[in-house]
């Protein structure tokens, strides 16, 4: 009756479950490794239209894989031809003539022509455009279709940046037929076509057989989104992922370096990581206090502790690999005694308390703890407030309602932000503004370099922020995977040259 069967049923279930477990564990093998690649990214893109969003994660998936522009940025940061095989500049510098590649088709089979270029650029610079980088197109007065393989771009004033600007992910060429649906079903001219997006998990792409250029070696690729460093580590070390080009758990790099299965690539980024200070808040108004804080922080210990040694100390808001870099790391050496002295001088011998708002990235959360510890030694009590990006944007960036925050400024050559009014540091210096104005009208390279160095010196001496380190790009991938970028001149995971070696 019930009794016997209940018991036997239970036992049967248990036995069945045990068998199933055995079957599952036994059958786990890594997928066919030679023609597909699974690649980890920390952030999932909100959508896939590179021309309609600022998120770097969009470019990380689609740039040069699905979408292409007239020009492209190479692994070393140089501007290279792409859909345009070449271009000429008129003598007055106001007209650029682009000669387009032949035989290009979109993934939906539509042939590519100069009309698409005009459509894309006009759409991007239209008044109702939702392009996140509209200033890229500011100088363009008109786009003219000369013939299906030739297009002219007319400028209002000469600019040396057009070819670079058009290489941005925000300037890729889209087809008028699919422009509206690119967010969820991107259709471009690149070597890979979009397959499927499992939200919160991964995006799959596969080789586009009708590609105009050299066929990529990978058949398929998937981008998996793993924001948690712990999960990222587990996925890499267990071999679930083949590559993690921008890897966020620096403490584990040593393990990967020691493991012959993996290759570790440490490259540079444009990210200056700073302890930003609200220059109009309480004690922080006082330059002496800001300088004291700059002295109080042990930057090398911070790089060691938070980034496990991955990062270059900087003394100002400028990338060290740039030729105009001014090495000011000696300006505020770690010196707690000096810091205390300066604080006393400023009238804060007893120290003070303040808050430190930390956005989610590892460098901020970990650096925050170390900085709080350093500042405690000179009498400054920091209350750590972790915030999500949304909150950081509204509270710190927009409302400047903060004392301290840690953030990495990843835009290249962005020292100009110190000249902006009401930028979130609330820094205001007429001297600096004059410098930047002068810079903007200067074309001579040496003079520019000189001005840039002065600008760096100026903000450093004012100790606007504490300049901590240049973020390193730490990539980890299977030792047999070749062709991934080592540096990050632009956020991209160009898979067209990626291949597997046999051993």
């Amino acid at each position: 009756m019930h009794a016997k069967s209940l018991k036997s049923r239970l036992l049967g279930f248990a036995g069945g479950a045990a068998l199933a477990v055995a079957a599952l564990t036994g059958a786990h093998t890594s997928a066919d490794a030679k023609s597909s690649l699974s690649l980890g990214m920390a952030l999932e893109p909100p959508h896939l239209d590179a021309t309609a969003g600022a998120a770097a994660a969009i470019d990380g998936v689609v740039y040069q894989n699905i979408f292409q522009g007239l020009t492209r940025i190479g692994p070393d940061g140089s501007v290279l031809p792409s859909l345009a095989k070449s271009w000429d500049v008129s003598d007055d510098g106001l007209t650029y003539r682009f000669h387009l590649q032949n035989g290009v088709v979109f993934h939906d089979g539509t042939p590519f022509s100069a009309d698409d270029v005009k459509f894309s650029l006009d759409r991007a610079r239209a008044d109702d455009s939702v392009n996140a980088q509209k200033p890229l197109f500011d100088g363009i007065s008109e786009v003219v279709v000369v013939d299906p393989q030739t297009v002219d771009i007319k400028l209002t004033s000469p600019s040396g940046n057009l070819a670079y600007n058009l290489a941005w992910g925000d300037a890729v060429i889209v087809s008028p037929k699919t422009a509206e649906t690119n967010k969820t079903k991107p259709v471009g001219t690149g070597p890979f076509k979009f397959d499927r997006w499992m939200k919160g998990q991964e995006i799959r792409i596969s080789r586009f057989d009708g590609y105009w250029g050299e066929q990529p070696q990978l058949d398929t690729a998937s981008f998996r989104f793993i924001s948690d460093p712990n999960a990222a580590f587990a996925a890499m070390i267990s071999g679930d992922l083949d590559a993690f080009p921008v890897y966020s758990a620096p403490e584990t790099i040593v393990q990967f370096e020691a493991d012959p299965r993996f290759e570790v690539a440490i490259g540079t980024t444009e990210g200056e990581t700073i302890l930003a200070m609200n220059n109009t808040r309480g004690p922080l108004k006082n330059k002496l206090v800001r300088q004291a804080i700059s002295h109080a922080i042990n930057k090398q210990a911070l790089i060691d502790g938070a980034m496990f040694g991955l990062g270059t100390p900087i003394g100002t808001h400028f990338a060290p690999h740039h030729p105009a870099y001014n090495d000011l790391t000696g300006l505020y050496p770690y010196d707690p005694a000096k810091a205390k002295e300066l604080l006393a001088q400023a009238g804060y011998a007893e120290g003070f308390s303040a808050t430190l708002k930390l956005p989610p990235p590892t460098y901020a959360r970990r650096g925050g703890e170390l900085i709080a510890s350093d500042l405690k030694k000179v009498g400054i009590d920091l209350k750590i407030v972790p915030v999500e990006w949304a909150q950081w944007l509204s509270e710190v960036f927009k409302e400047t309602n903060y004392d301290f925050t840690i953030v990495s400024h990843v835009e290249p050559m962005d020292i100009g932000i110190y000249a902006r009014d009401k930028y979130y540091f609330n820094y205001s210096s007429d001297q600096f503004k004059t410098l930047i104005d002068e810079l903007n009208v200067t074309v001579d390279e040496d003079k520019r370099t000189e001005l840039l160095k002065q600008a760096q010196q100026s903000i450093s001496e004012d100790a606007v922020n504490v300049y901590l380190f240049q973020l390193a790009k730490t990539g980890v991938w299977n030792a047999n995977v070749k062709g991934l970028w080592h540096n990050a001149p632009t956020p991209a995971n160009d898979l067209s040259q990626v291949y597997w070696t046999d051993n």
Partner: protein
Amino acid sequence: MNQELPSYPPPAKYDAISIWRKALRSRSFVIGAVLALFVLIAGVTSIFWTPYAIDVLDVSQRLQPMSSQYLFGTDQYGRDILSMLMAGARTSIIVALIAVGIGMLIGVPLGLLAAAQRGLLEEMVMRTNDLIFAFPSLLSAVLITSIFGPGTINAVIAIGIFNIPVFARVARGGALALSGREFLLAARLSGKSTFLITVEHVIPNIANLLIVQASIQLSLAILAEAGLSYLGLGTQPPMASWGRMLYEAQTMVAFAPQLALYPGFAIIFSVLGFNLLGDGLRDLLDPKMRRRVA
């Protein structure tokens, strides 16, 4: 043979000495009390003293192995793990005690009120209870802490809210179970008000239930705090929390497994301690209660 038949329950005794004697014979109680006391002492001590300060980081000392200098070694920032564990005990205990305290202080009167004033009020209290129960507790704690900001205080509130219906339910159930008892009728015949009867008779008689429930809730609250801190929504640095330690240790499992093991064991010990204490108390205070509650 015949092991399923009842052994007659011993008559309930209420004098302190006999309870104490029985307590010392109860394995659950003794082990639980020792563990809980151990965690408690560690936490209280950390308020005045820890081997090293936990908010001063010394990166040069990071990931030291166990030694006479650092009894349990140091973590990735060069903090002494023993000090961190002690401070973590403080966090766990403070969060758990206050959260359970909130639950009791609000839940018990609500439950008693519901039991005393049957009808509309009772219906309202119980429906509100159902509503809170309908929110998976940790999920809502995640919501609350994300909205009002991560931190110890918000974690306490989030966990505390979910203790309210538990205690309301236990208090109401206990009071209703008593409601037919003749000594309550006798008290009413003595002209005592409902409030006075509740204070003099009901509360002392459901105290056992509440104490046992409290020890169970304490262990649940410790787990919840660890979970929230693991997600980064609970206790924030520089204050230590076991859940956070566990999170931070996770990527280093391969080369520094001790970092994940210690906080894990700390959580297990303290939760085990309070659970066993609860079990022990239940057996001690009322051998028949297990049936009533279940």
